[in-house]
């Protein structure tokens, strides 16, 4: 009975109710969409980083610190015979890092040189282009990413000089040619990176079969590889990217917290006005035998009904949007894609997990109930006789 009365009342409120419902459904749609976007982004970033950079887990030479490029030339260790076998079996791929400088058109640009075996199939990097046909040829083939090509204004076939120091600190330099500009979606395999043959890099670094990273095809059963190596699972590798995405997500939350606040204010305001306008009705309901508690419940329910109608609206009007972004995906605006986070280059397919949808719904619901209930304190303070006279 109370539900029916509440429903009739909010229909009776007309456009004011409609605005509340629309605001709520915008908040709901927006929150679900945004979270779906970030969840989708996280998933695609993970997929891409597995495919392009980290495989199903990887080892890092213990000296390596990705935040300190000074460690680059100190972090390498020779592969153990067992690991060499795994590499030969196609279960692991070693990658050697080196600090370096390139001089495209005489402009000096610091880079990280990465040596990767040409016949690997674990990572998506098109390493077949790195094959050195003629060992005595003075020019080494290299691969760079699209962003790198753009920032250095280089394209396939371009030659330039690359300089580095070997492990003894001796300067060495060769001319290199861009054999391939690859379209990698993972910025950490692209920006300021030059890929070349693993054996050649070992040779010019005065090393022998040494690596900085060993990327694995499958999760290892036993991840201990001795004191030279530190194991990082996919989750470990993703931590930084996940954190960056979370940071962006927080930015989005701020907007929707504001919108939610707006919705709350709208409902709060509607409730205040409604209680004021209907004080005589409140008195009548008391006279008819309703307790104040029942009347408070009635008014709170009315506010909460906005939420339920908002949900219905979201279902009807949001669904095509959700489906579109879930199936077609969303391309990040250009200015955003300059952030160095994986997953940005592809269109991101939103991912809506039931937990996310339910928790979003519950949060908005809770806020709505609260905003609806808060003004009803006036009802509790009201005297029936005054209410009947239209006094508050």
């Amino acid at each position, binding site marked *: *009975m109370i539900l029916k*009365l509440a429903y*009739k*009342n909010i*229909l*009776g409120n007309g456009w004011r109710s409609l605005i509340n419902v629309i605001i709520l459904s915008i908040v709901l749609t927006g929150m679900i969409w945004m979270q779906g976007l970030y969840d989708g982004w996280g998933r695609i970033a993970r997929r891409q980083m597995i495919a392009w950079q980290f495989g199903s887990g990887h080892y890092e030479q213990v000296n390596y610190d990705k935040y300190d490029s000074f460690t680059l030339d100190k972090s390498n260790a020779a592969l153990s015979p067992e690991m060499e076998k795994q590499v030969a079996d196609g279960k692991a791929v070693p990658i050697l890092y080196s600090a370096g400088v390139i001089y495209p058109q005489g402009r000096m640009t610091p880079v990280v040189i990465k040596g990767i075996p040409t016949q690997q199939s674990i990572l998506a990097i098109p390493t077949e282009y790195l094959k050195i046909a003629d060992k005595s040829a003075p020019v080494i083939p290299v691969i760079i990413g699209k962003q790198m090509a753009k920032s250095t204004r280089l394209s396939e076939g371009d030659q330039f000089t690359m300089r580095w120091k070997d492990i003894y600190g001796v300067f060495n330099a060769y001319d290199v040619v861009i054999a391939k500009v690859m379209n990698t979606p993972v910025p950490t395999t692209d920006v300021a990176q030059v890929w070349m043959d693993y054996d050649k890099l070992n040779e010019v670094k005065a090393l022998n079969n040494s690596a900085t990273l060993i990327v694995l095809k499958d999760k290892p059963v036993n991840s201990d590889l001795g004191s030279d190596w530190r194991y990082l699972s996919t989750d470990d590798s993703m931590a930084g990217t996940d954190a960056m995405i979370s940071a962006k997500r927080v930015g989005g939350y701020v907007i929707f917290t504001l919108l939610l606040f707006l919705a709350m204010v709208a409902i709060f305001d509607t409730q205040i006005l409604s209680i004021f306008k209907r004080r*005589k*009705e409140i*008195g*009548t309901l*008391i*006279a*008819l*035998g*309703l*307790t*104040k*508690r*029942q009347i408070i419940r009635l008014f709170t329910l009315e506010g909460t009904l906005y939420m339920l109608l908002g949900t219905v609206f979201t279902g009807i009007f949001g669904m095509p949007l959700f489906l579109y972004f879930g199936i077609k995906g969303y391309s990040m605006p250009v200015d955003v894609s300059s952030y160095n986070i994986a997953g940005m280059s592809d269109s991101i397919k939103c991912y809506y997990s039931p937990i996310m949808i339910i928790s979003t719904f519950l949060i908005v619901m809770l806020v709505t109930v609260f905003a609806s209930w808060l003004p009803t304190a006036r009802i509790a303070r009201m*005297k*029936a*006789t005054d209410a*009947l006279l239209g006094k508050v």
Partner: protein
Amino acid sequence: MSKILIETKHMTKYYPTGEGKFTALQDINLSFEKGEFAGLVGPSGSGKTTLLNIIGSLDTQSEGEVIVLGKEVSTLSARQSAALRSKHIGFIFQTYNLLPVYNVYENVELPLLLLKMSTEERKKAVMEALEWVGLTDKLKSRPNQLSGGQGQRVSIARAMVKKPQIVLADEPTANLDTENSLHILDTMLKINRETGTTFVFSTHDQKVVNYLNRVITLVDGKKAKDDLKVSV
């Protein structure tokens, strides 16, 4: 002697004001029996509505006793007094106080919903009440589509639908023209006679007074006269 439904003993009501208090009712001793068609008369401010509200347990006295259907109303909890009103007391207001979002049928049905009656029982009772007031053809109308007289008749039906023992009517004719006033008075009197429901009015309308079989005159919160009349 008939059964006494309402009884007040040395009942006083005052409101605190800036300094001291304002006495609305003073030392009221009254009793109403089943089947009475009684009215509180007097100029505005004489305490008629206050007395009606206290009897209806919408308000409580400051001193003395008020016993309605055997219960001292000032000792009832919010839930108990709500139950008393929903089961036994019907209210009729000067401004009808119909719920604007409900149609005629729903407005009349509302008190029954609180009594948790079955749909069938409710329908029967609502139709019966609307028959008394002659509005069975306006079931689907909204309050704002009704004339003043029709509105008040709906409110009478709403008060009567649960077959209360007491109906309290506060200036029921104040907003109506003579024809409509007489019409609803006829209706109420008919109900009073057929069902034995006790009616207590507050009014200063002579047309109403003419219908009453007992007129209690209040002046400045005190009972001035209590006249029994032969019914019209």
